[in-house]
């Protein structure tokens, strides 16, 4: 299945990726190759297989509602590119 240039551009935009013309060409080829590869699944008869929500059989992995100590704020903020001792700081983002 061919992934078009338009689709590559849309997917890149959704992922906030800026691609050069060269990269777009590469992506077109890569993504087309992948979808082509997965097309082989179409040959399998899945009419008797229920939809799969997860590859593992486990269900109901739950924890009791119990509060535990949180992390030290300084330790959490240590990885932030910018911070003020209380908060993470990012460029102004108003929806």
């Amino acid at each position, binding site marked *: 299945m061919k992934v078009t240039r338009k689709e590559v551009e849309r997917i890149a935009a959704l992922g906030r990726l800026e691609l050069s013309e060269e990269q777009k060409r590469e992506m077109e080829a890569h993504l087309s190759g992948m979808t082509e590869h997965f097309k082989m699944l179409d040959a399998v008869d899945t009419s008797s297989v229920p939809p799969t*929500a*997860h590859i593992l059989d486990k*269900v*109901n*992995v739950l924890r009791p509602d119990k509060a535990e100590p949180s992390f030290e704020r300084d330790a959490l903020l240590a990885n932030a590119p910018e911070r003020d001792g209380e*908060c993470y700081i*990012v460029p102004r983002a*108003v*929806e």
Partner: protein
Amino acid sequence: MYEMTLGLEIHCELKTESKIFCGCRNEFGGEPNTHCCPVCSGFPGVMPVLNEKAVEYTVRTGLALNCEISRYSKWDRKNYFYPDLPKAWQTSQYDLPLCKGGFVEYELDGKIKTVRINRIHLEEDAGKLLHEGGVSRIDYNRSGVPLMEIVTEPDLHSEAEAVAFLDGLKSVLKYIGVSDVKMQEGSLRCDVNLSVAKPGQKLGTRTETKNLNSFSAVKRSILFEYDRQCGVLNAGGTITQETRRWDDNKSVGYSMRGKEDAHDYRYFPEPDLMPVVLSGEKIEEIRKAIPRLKKERIAIYTEKLGLPLYDARILTADKDIADLFEGTAAVFKNPKKASNYIMSEIMRKGKREGSEDVEIGVSPAALAEILTLIDSGVISLAASKDVLDAVWNGAESPLAAVERLGLRQNSDSGELESAVKEVIAANASAAEQYKAGNQKVAAFLVGQVMKATKGKSNPKLVGELIEKLLKTN
């Protein structure tokens, strides 16, 4: 003339002890980023583990709203880029939510109306952005708070219906104990989908106004958007499907531009969380834990406790008030007197400016004690207000407050008699009217005595003394 059609999406934070996918405390407020860990701060490589209480509360809500509970539900990632979500996706439920279908009954102008529920799903709340100057500061305390989204069908047709429905829903959520539903703290928020059409025609294009956090904002934003859409159509224009914001201070709605191109959440199954499977027994177990709702309580108050329907309705409008009444009436065995006192003094005192909630600062035991003190003549009704002020949100007992403030009313008839005599002497014409058969002035004279003794006299005794003194005169 256009008719409006409304569908609501209600976001409700669940009152669990810990967050939905980690053990951080679920608590409003707190210093920024102090209820956080790598899971709710979206660090790479962390694994979420689902809070069983959040599932239980969502199912409890579904049962209270007459929904079908899914035996099998799963988790999905809703992808979008905005710094309030540190992972760049919100863990939510897409095609297999915990609850489907259902309905809510609410009352407007004495009529019972119904709104159908489309679905209820569980997700995580996002963090809070504080915009300051050229930057945004992020506080992730709210990130990962269990958030339940209730989606209605488009069954509402006026702002009054929307508010009455929300009020009814809020009451149910509070009664079943899943949320504290404080709109001013954001634990209950509402998105409004609105379209207009001429009667009989198919629904128009809808817009969505997001994040309304008071009944007043819901009402005003609906009226604003209705007028705006009618204006566009009357001018020959067309409505664009869009997401809008409401500026509560300026009372205007505005479009959130530039989201159209990115409006694709690319939902896909969350690989880090296992599906939830609920057995019939588990669902029944949750159903049994649902506390008595408003309707049932009204029946008990009117049938067993002999209250008028009017009282029962006012007392049950808010669960905290209903609980206070029940606790008080269990000790102080005059339900009507307890009801009267709560409807007047407690509701007046507990009402907060700009809030739909009544805050209660007195325990049922303390209120029962105050009522007993009034009933046995130890304090006057007037003095009880000072007692209430003294014990409100405090640890002092009503009796201790009475002694400390010297509010014990005078029942010494000798002392009172001289006070009454003085008042009669000072109000000779009123006394004459009384003697001439005008009973109404008695209340005036009692009032004068109460004033002269600074409210510390037993009004019943004062009345008797006035009668005695003026009759034998």
